[in-house]
């Protein structure tokens, strides 16, 4: 490009400065896109894409109980050691029942001892240690772990991030229950 052309080109390119000002000026007048958090929260359909701390998946039969079979694969897979699962113990027998089993064994009969249920008795999760790597989600044999879309996690102490996920599942199921029932009512009101 010859110098004279270059000179006029440079002057013509100054127009881009005006274009830049137009863009920011337009933005200045437009509606804000952020949300004032404590007073407002974003629409739930937006945080569907958010992957927060892990949560348990409810079993299809009983929404208050997880699919979990206490295999402890997640515990051994977790690199941060933030998952604690305690297996359920077999139900305690009354002295009479125990006596009956002993008697049966003495008689040489085959007795079916009551076995422990598969579901966990405790499912503790320390979010403050978790690195959200998702290894537990992959390791879970029955797809009982998934990422929640819990966006607003606030706590004032370290212990606030030690979650009891069984209790969380239960409370969520209870919360969802009445909502599901009340929905048709709302629809009829609108109609």
């Amino acid at each position, binding site marked *: 490009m010859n110098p004279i052309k270059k000179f006029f080109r*440079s002057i013509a390119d100054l127009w881009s400065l005006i274009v*830049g000002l137009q*863009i920011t*000026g337009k933005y*200045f007048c437009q509606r804000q*896109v*952020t949300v*004032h958090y404590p007073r407002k929260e974003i629409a739930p359909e937006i945080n569907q894409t958010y992957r927060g701390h892990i949560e348990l998946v409810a079993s299809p039969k009983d929404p208050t109980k997880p699919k979990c079979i206490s295999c402890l694969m997640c515990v051994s897979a977790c690199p941060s050691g933030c998952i604690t699962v305690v297996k359920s113990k077999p139900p305690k027998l009354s002295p009479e029942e125990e006596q009956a089993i002993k008697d049966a064994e003495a008689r040489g009969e085959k007795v079916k001892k009551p076995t422990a249920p598969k579901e966990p008795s405790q499912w503790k999760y320390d979010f403050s240690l978790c690195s959200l790597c998702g290894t537990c989600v992959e390791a879970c044999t029955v797809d009982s772990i998934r990422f929640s879309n819990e966006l607003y996690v606030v706590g004032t102490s370290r212990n606030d991030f030690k979650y009891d996920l069984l209790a969380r599942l239960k409370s969520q199921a209870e919360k969802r229950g009445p909502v599901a029932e009340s929905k048709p009512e709302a629809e009829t009101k609108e109609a």
Partner: protein
Amino acid sequence: MNGIATELIRIVVGLVAVAAFVGLNGLVLVYAERKGAGHFQRRPGPYEVGPHGVIQPIADALKLIGKQLFTPENADPFLFWLAPLLSFFPVLLLFVPLPFGPVLTVWEVDLGLLLILAFAGINVLALLLAGWASNNKYGLLGAGRAVAQSVAYEIPLLLTVLAIAFQSGTLNLSTIVSQQGSWPWQWNIVTQPLAFIIYLVSALGETNRAPFDLPEAESELTAGFHTEYSGMGFGMFFLAEYANMIVVSGVCTALFLGGWKGPFVDGFWWYLVKVYALLGAMIWFRWTYPRVRFDQLLNINWKWLLPLATLNLLGTAFLMKLF
């Protein structure tokens, strides 16, 4: 004797008023800057402290005042603490010849423009001292940039101011304003549009404002010359920067935009409206343009602004001689 005493009282009262004005303006401009930044990026800006965050700058100021004044190891303590003072206090003097209103001038000096240009130069020294004395590589680089930039951009600034001085035949800002009329087409910007643009660009360079904020480029130099300053040491530089912005806008208003004269009713309000419009434009520029590279910065100055300003000055001189 009596005359000198009244003059002295006038100057002292004027300087106190200027200091109050500068402090108040710092608060207003910090708020405007942060709110502006927010809205240009489609977010609310400061919102929590007071309704719409109006008390935020006061909270910021209190935080700065409450902080410990910390001198880094192996820094030169005398020069280190001299620099913020040297940066802030001469700025107050720059307000002395500014004609805020028909009678609202601290001290009407015949060589007002010269006084402003002379004392504005001290700021460069302050930045150099700050960067040098803090014993920090980022500080030193920032100081080096500040000196190269301010020295370069002072020249076109001077040449454009000189063009107006040629045209009006005076260096007294009040006289320059009184020679212009009330309506926009009677202002100097109509006869000197090129000088106005060159002045505006050089003023941005002179005050180290974006897109020419290389001495404190956050992404490369952490904070440039004021990296090591905490508390009010930093606060002084901050206030000085905003005061300098007001001064360059004030001079621009007096030279090109008719000063305190405006449609319908003349008065200091027109001056303030114009100054704040220019400051708003500066904030707008800051949140629009990306920072230039250092070679680009000097190329703009030496290859464009300086020749154009010289041509403009020669043209003005020729036309003044002709008519």
